[in-house]
């Protein structure tokens, strides 16, 4: 009772008007601190298999013995095919599959992005499960060229051997599809797109044929990446790749199954994100977490499995790493055991987590523990927006004495006359200024529409002109806020309304994004965090400092910095090309989030700061 009365009394307090920026700062700090806490034992958990039907590693695997000879023969065959032209190679693989008793088909695909063309053909065959009713299928993938563009000799040979081996078993209650795409990114993408549609009308950027042969609903996909040449190469550990397009993740059970079979049954160490040595220390966990955040926020394909995940097909890639004592047969046995586990499933994988951050192969953070970090960051924008909205409804003259303290102010009184009655009331409580919403709302809408120009530039220019487009966008972005601020003279209240509306929209969009792609929301939220703190100021020093901090954290500058830090060797042109390919061919949202969400909010921040200069000059 007393507390609520006190809280109510606080409503008119001038203290409240000063609070929002500090609350926002607190939100940002809590958001960062939260992420740093996650690797601790208290906030993360040991992984566990929660679907009882999977029974990982409970079966004896029979892949071995004479299959090894067949594998070696196929490996030589694959090497021989690699020396042949494209057509002959596909015909050769189709023949091997048909000889093993599979139904075979192929699917040509072509993508046209940023003046580059990507062509290839998916070759695939179906092992019809003896106990299957053709309603469910699992996929074994081995791309002809792996993600690093090496020929996947042993991977393809192992997949062919396994297909021959699987087709002799009577235990399969799901069909098995063996898919050999030409490349690791676009082939699987074209195949899975075609698998889930009746026809795909060709557009200017892609031309995919329909699939002549289909099986049932896809349950899971496992891709093999083992580029060892015709004479073999033993490996030390398996790197498990799990990131899907746009930051979607496969069910944690699939990953756990692979890890528990590989490390528990076969004794093969499993790693994530190429962290070869992992001592399970705080540092190593944090470093894996950071790699996970980075790949997830980019949202681009990380292997042949990535394309499957948006279609709700759980998929992982098993990639061999290093030089050790495990041979191809161990990898074959792991794959066999994983397929036996998936074969056991009675329903689609759903028991375990879809939202998680991995700290190492058997430790994870679940959604409830990490999501607040991004939400708190998005909340920092909303808090500032609410504060600015309240301030925008107050008159300058009235706010000033308020800020100085209430006590000794002489309260101006006003007479209110209505009908025959008269009353004396304090003026402050009566006076609220009418908010002029029209210009800020129109400006906000305009800036958001303008954001589609850089988006269009970054996705439609040719490879040679992409970098030039970015330079141009940078120059225009840095000038635009100042020119907008000079042409549209905003009043103090209008500037506050503009910033408030922009921040509330940014906060809502980031909160929504956090549920779809947590990492991207977190990264953009951190980069955009200065936007909650910039204010219109008549002091030129403060304005200059704010303008500088905005310029440093601007979207185009972030692209340059990203290239310098993470891809110093590749060059800007290559990076921009990959981003454009991601948008046009893979349907990755990253560029839209950067240019359609972050960039407009940044421009509005710039306009608010710029309008301070204008007001000072006046």
């Amino acid at each position, binding site marked *: 009772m007393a507390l609520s009365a006190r809280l109510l009394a606080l409503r008119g307090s001038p203290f409240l008007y000063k609070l929002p920026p500090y609350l926002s700062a607190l939100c940002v700090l809590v958001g960062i601190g939260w992420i740093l806490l996650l690797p601790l034992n208290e906030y993360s958990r040991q992984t566990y298999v929660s679907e009882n039907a999977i029974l990982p590693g409970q079966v004896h695997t029979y892949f071995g013995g004479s299959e090894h000879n067949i594998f070696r023969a196929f490996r030589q065959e694959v090497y021989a095919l690699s020396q042949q032209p494209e057509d002959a190679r596909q015909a050769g693989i189709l023949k091997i599959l048909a000889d093993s008793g599979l139904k075979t088909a192929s699917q040509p695909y072509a993508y046209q992005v940023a003046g580059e063309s990507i062509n290839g053909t998916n070759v695939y065959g179906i092992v019809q499960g003896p106990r299957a009713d053709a309603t469910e299928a699992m996929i074994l993938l081995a791309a002809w060229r792996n993600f690093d563009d090496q020929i996947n000799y042993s991977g393809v040979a192992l997949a062919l051997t396994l297909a021959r081996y699987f087709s002799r078993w009577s235990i399969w209650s799901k069909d098995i599809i063996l898919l050999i795409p030409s490349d690791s990114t676009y082939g699987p993408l074209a195949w899975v797109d075609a698998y889930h549609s009746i026809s795909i009308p060709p557009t200017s950027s892609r031309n995919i044929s329909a699939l002549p042969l289909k099986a049932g609903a896809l349950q899971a996909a496992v891709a093999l990446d083992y580029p060892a040449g015709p004479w073999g190469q033993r490996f030390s550990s398996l790197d498990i790749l799990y990131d899907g397009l746009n930051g979607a993740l496969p069910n944690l059970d699939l990953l756990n199954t692979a890890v528990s079979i590989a490390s528990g049954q076969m004794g093969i160490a499993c790693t994530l994100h190429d962290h070869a040595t992992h001592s399970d220390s705080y540092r190593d966990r944090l470093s894996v977490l950071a790699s996970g955040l980075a790949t997830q926020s980019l949202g681009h394909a990380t292997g042949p499995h990535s394309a499957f995940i948006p279609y709700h097909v759980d998929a992982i890639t098993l990639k061999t790493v290093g030089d050790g004592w495990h041979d191809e047969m161990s990898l074959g046995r792991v794959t066999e055991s994983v397929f036996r586990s998936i074969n056991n499933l009675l329903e689609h994988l759903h028991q375990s987590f*879809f939202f998680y951050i991995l700290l190492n192969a058997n430790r994870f953070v679940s959604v409830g523990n990490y999501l607040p970090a991004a939400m708190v960051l998005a909340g920092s924008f909303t808090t500032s927006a609410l504060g600015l909205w309240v301030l925008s409804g107050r008159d300058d003259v009235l706010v000033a004495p308020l800020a100085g303290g209430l006590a000794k102010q002489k309260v101006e009184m006003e007479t209110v006359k209505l009908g025959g009655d008269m009353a004396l009331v304090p003026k402050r409580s009566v006076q609220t200024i009418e908010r002029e919403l029209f210009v800020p709302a129109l400006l906000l809408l305009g800036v958001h529409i303008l954001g589609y120009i850089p988006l269009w530039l970054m996705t439609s220019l040719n490879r040679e002109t992409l970098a030039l487009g970015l330079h141009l966008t940078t120059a225009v972005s840095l000038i635009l806020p100042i020119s907008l601020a000079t042409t549209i003279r905003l009043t103090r209240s209008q500037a506050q309304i503009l910033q408030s509306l922009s921040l509330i929209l940014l906060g*809502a969009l980031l909160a929504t994004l956090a549920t779809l792609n947590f990492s991207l929301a977190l990264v953009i939220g951190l980069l955009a965090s200065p936007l909650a703190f910039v204010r219109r100021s008549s002091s030129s020093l403060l304005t200059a400092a704010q303008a500088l901090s905005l310029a440093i954290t601007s979207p185009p500058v972030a692209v340059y910095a990203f290239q310098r830090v993470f891809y110093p060797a590749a060059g800007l042109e290559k990076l921009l090309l990959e981003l454009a390919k991601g948008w046009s061919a893979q349907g990755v949202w990253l560029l839209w989030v950067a240019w359609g969400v972050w960039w407009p909010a940044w421009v509005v921040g710039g306009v608010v700061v710029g309008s301070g200069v204008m007001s000072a000059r006046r």
Partner: protein
Amino acid sequence: MEAVTKLYHEHPRTVLFSAAATLRLALPLAFPALPDLLSARVEISTPVNSFKRLHEGIFLFEHGLDPYDGGIFHQAPLLLPLFSLLPASTSVLGRLASILLFTILDVLSADCLHAIAASGTATVSSVFSSPRKTQAWQPLTVAAVYLLNPFTILTCLGRPTTVFTTFFTLLSIRHATEGKLQTSAFALAIASYLSLHPALLLPPIGLLCYDQLCKSREPVNDTDGLKSPMKHASSQTDRPKVLDFGIRFFSCFLLTAALLLALSRVLLPSFAFLPSVYLTPLRVPDLTPNPGLWWYFFIEMFDPFRSFFLGVFWLHMLSYSVPFCLRMRKQPLAAVVSMLGITAIFQPYANVGEAGAWLSCLTLLSHTFEVSSTHRYTFPAVAVLLYTSLLGPAFHHLWLYAGSGNANFFYAITLVWNLALLIILTDTVYSVLRDEWEAERPEGKGKEVRQI
């Protein structure tokens, strides 16, 4: 530029209406996939207003079958011959024709809102005159808020048949503000024939119409402050009889409804349409997700309790109609707008189209915005609406397409959405009543409300 400014100053309404119509027609031309995408959204299309289901009905109707046999179509029968006249909606021409029809409806609704706002009924009734009447927004602004409301635009492209209901409801209110008893009851009967729930507006719209009749009978239009009791007494005599008015209004409504139902029976082979159209909202057999409060509740319900809670939910909705009229008898338009809000929020097959139309109608009470924005939670509630309208589709996607979420994700968001709408509704009721109170006690202006 000069010419445009001149044109705008001379015919602002024409410019606004044609701009809004152009926007609605340009969007599907620029993005041809957009209308069908929106028609399939659960937030816009419900089992009782979906454009796709309407086409199922039309197909059966055109092939001489009873359209209500399939159990999919639950919309009013007279929509069938109307939509059979349009070209098939699968063609580009058909899609444009249907969007053109819904655009015309939207523009006509906006025109109704313009007329209602211009009549000044919101601030001045026969017994009350708001102290804030100078702060009411321009009628053109009210129309603009309706036409440029993103929810209205998306609904127009999604083409649910509740747009017809909205139009006829607004038409009825418009005629009520002009004191036209017959046409007001006629339009309301059409609206109720289309969707049933506008029948709940019968008491407030009747009150509004009666109030306007009283106002037009008064020879002197005293607009300054409250009227003296003396004057009340004198004008009491030439007021129309309440009972007389009520009977005429109600019988007009019933006659029209009966006429429409009879006409429907002529079109169709049997009376099967009656249970299909009117029992569906009452018994809620189809629990397709929607932004309302009912579907999840009735999915979880054990069967023995179902009919009891159906009764409770409907009684709850019913129970507002008359009390609003009693409490806001001095401001009948406020009672109508509040009741519109109740039906938009609590109806079994809620959709964002009706919620958006109601949010636009709130601008009719714009003179009280000052009260709700300084004392209440309008801005946070509007911000929550923004959050939920982004999170809703995202969670629906996670539940049904990505498969990584579940039904609780979407349901939680619909709860928050309705909470925000309810906060806006209670704030409106608060500000309307406060405005009325301050007219009597000007010394209380700006003071905090306190429980005594």
